[in-house]
């Protein structure tokens, strides 16, 4: 009985060690996933969002993007959007928060691949967005390119990709 108790205790300690390692020293993939989930959270907003909260969320969103970036959402359902600077994207985000009553965005099935060059990565994911102006959710496959700058993974490219290719 004593042996069983010891084995359980050793198992618990090992599990705790793994958990602590993943929290304090996350892998690049886990770190990127965490940051992308935070982006989805910051992109989302409710109908009762105040002006200060709106500006704060957009400013915080800016910290997840590189200054020079490329956003190409050339999908007819998302309308065509092309941005080449962070400021443009943030202005569009702020304008969208004023024009639309609410948006709930979720990033599903995030697959992170580290790039051949050091400190580069791509993440393929499915965006599920619910806009107050649309009756149904919109699903869109997106590819994020990221680069590690000053110890933080920042997004430098977003493109809409298609599941089915012509």
């Amino acid at each position: 009985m004593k042996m069983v108790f010891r084995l359980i205790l050793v198992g618990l300690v090992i599990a705790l060690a793994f958990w602590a390692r993943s929290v304090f020293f996350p892998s690049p993939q886990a770190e990127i996933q965490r940051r992308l989930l935070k982006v989805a959270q910051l992109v989302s907003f409710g109908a009762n969002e105040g002006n200060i909260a709106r500006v704060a969320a957009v400013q915080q969103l800016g910290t997840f993007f590189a200054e020079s970036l490329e956003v190409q959402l050339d999908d007819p359902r998302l309308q065509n959007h092309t941005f080449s600077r962070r400021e443009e994207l943030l202005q569009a985000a702020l304008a969208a928060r004023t024009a639309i009553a609410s948006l709930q965005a979720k990033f599903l099935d995030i697959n992170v691949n580290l790039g051949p060059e050091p400190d580069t990565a791509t993440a393929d994911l499915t965006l599920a967005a619910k806009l107050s102006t649309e009756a149904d959710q919109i699903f869109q496959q997106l590819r994020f390119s990221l680069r590690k700058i000053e110890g933080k993974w920042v997004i430098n490219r977003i493109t809409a990709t298609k599941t089915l290719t012509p």
Partner: protein
Amino acid sequence: MAGETFRAAVIKWLRIFSIGRRPKWTMIRLAVLITLTFGTYEFVLLPVRVVGISMEPTYHNHSLNLLNRLSYVGGKEPRRGDIVGIRMTGEHAVLLKRVVGLPGERLAFHQGVVWINGSPIDEPYLKLPHRWETADEFVRPDHYYFVGDNRSMDVEYHEHGSALRSQIIGKVVIAGNP
């Protein structure tokens, strides 16, 4: 005295009703049921709710369907006409489409009807007006060509095209309409 007897009878009845006459067997049955349900939905069936109108009128918006992940195991390959779930970046969002083109075939749409290697195929499921016109495309090896049944939509709003065989999750086995 009578009140106490009645109370004891009610408690006994509640116990039997909730955990049965033999609690040990009830627990075993419950464990088996949970395992079977978990196993079925983890490894065999995938519930899918339709969002959008690209499969109208066969599948309506918001209808709930079940995909069988085991449809194409053991050497079975997708067949023309099968309605399948196609993985996007995972299984939380999938495309529900009909297989119309097989690997190596030449495919085009004329008046909304699929032509394979220069001949139209029989598509009895096309109930809505359809007028798509597209140029010939070749389905690459190990790829299948998918399209929805609603070709009354503008062609650019209707996602269609080819995907790898490995992206197919399974075939629709139980279809429910709202």
